[in-house]
């Protein structure tokens, strides 16, 4: 009886790691070396997820608690052509108007 109980307990204690699907690796890498409650963030495609590190089944994981925000570098990238044209236009007008 005892070996059977032990087997069942062992099975239960390990099964959880396999069947549950997995969260984004970035969400728990964001909390490596951090403490519970530390602010964390990680990239989610072109967005940034921000939250705090929480213990989920003995692992620290970044739990998002803010709406996703657009990544700053993506925003700058999308504005780059617009800025270039504006600055180029300003420069050419200054050249034309100079004596």
């Amino acid at each position, binding site marked *: 009886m005892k070996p059977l109980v032990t087997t069942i307990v062992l099975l239960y204690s390990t099964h959880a790691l396999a069947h549950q699907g*997995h969260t*984004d690796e970035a969400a728990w890498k964001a909390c490596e070396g951090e403490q519970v409650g530390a602010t964390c963030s990680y990239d989610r495609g072109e967005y940034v997820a921000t939250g705090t590190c929480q213990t989920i089944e003995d692992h620290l994981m970044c739990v998002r608690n803010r709406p996703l925000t657009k990544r700053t570098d993506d925003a700058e990238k999308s504005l780059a052509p617009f800025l270039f044209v504006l600055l180029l236009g300003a420069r050419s007008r200054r050249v034309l108007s100079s004596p």
Partner: protein
Amino acid sequence: MTARPIRTAVITALIAMGCSSSTAKNNVPETDATSPNNENTEPADMDGQSPADMDGQSDAGAASATLDPSMFLTDGLVQDISQTDCTLSGGTQTTCWQIVVTGSPANHDIGPFCPRNISDGADAGGMWIENEQTYDLSGAFIADLANFYNDPNWQLYDESTGDIYVTETQEACEGAARPDVAPEYQNHCVECDIAYVDGGTERTFLIPVEPVPTTGTNQLGRGALGVSLGGVGFEVSAPVDAILRAYTIAAFDDCGGHVNPFDGYHYHAVTDCQPNVPTDDGHAPLVGFALDGYGMYAMADSEGVEPDDLDECRGHSDEQRGYHYHVGAPGENLIIGCFRGEAGSQQ
């Protein structure tokens, strides 16, 4: 016009754009209809009927975060919800709701999970979660796994027939649902039939009638973190990649649930097929209760706006509901982050 006014105008435009993009509604990513699924987490309201309406009971307290037994679908319950003495995780002795569920969803079928051939369409399978997105688990998706993960070791189908390797027996299901997946079950799409647990695993949830807040937070333990209004447990997700290392896909159905031999059918995500109680003030609908007794609501309100003041557990308070949680998106494989109150239990 000199360069300085232009620069000023550009900076002003940048600030304006930055401000507009900081609103929660605009921050919801647009979803590519050709790849990941839409992550709309606002559950359908059962054709306008609340769970209470569906079984002909009162819908009193529909907007409240206080647990009312009439909110639950009776088909998901083994017996009437009752009250009993209980001891919470912090040692508080109090009265709990005793909710005994059948372990089978009251309002939808279970599955499908794995497609059987790479020619099968999306209807033949459920969904998969990766990079915080949900994907239709179609035959084409299975066929493309090596590219998807950029790893040629993914080979879940017979190249000559296109048949997908699926755990078709209880033995295979149990062998694959472990971290040390046996070699013969690697490169399988893993699914377990609800028949292996006699059609459902009866579970008892003890949830405090009056939540007992804690000064800090309580971490989520192993197992269920709460229960849906349809009588199915919401489970904690493990931040491990064990299943990927074994080249297995532990498929979810389109409702974000799957079966294992221990917990039976359970959810890892809140999707649009779980029953809910709609609110009358535009707030997100109620989808279930956490083990600490606080209500769990969908992620976004009727306008699609996600709250921007959630605490570390993904909860906040308002006048109508008091303290309550808002669940994460299905692709996050995360429902709430921790408990704000002393937790009851689940057996």
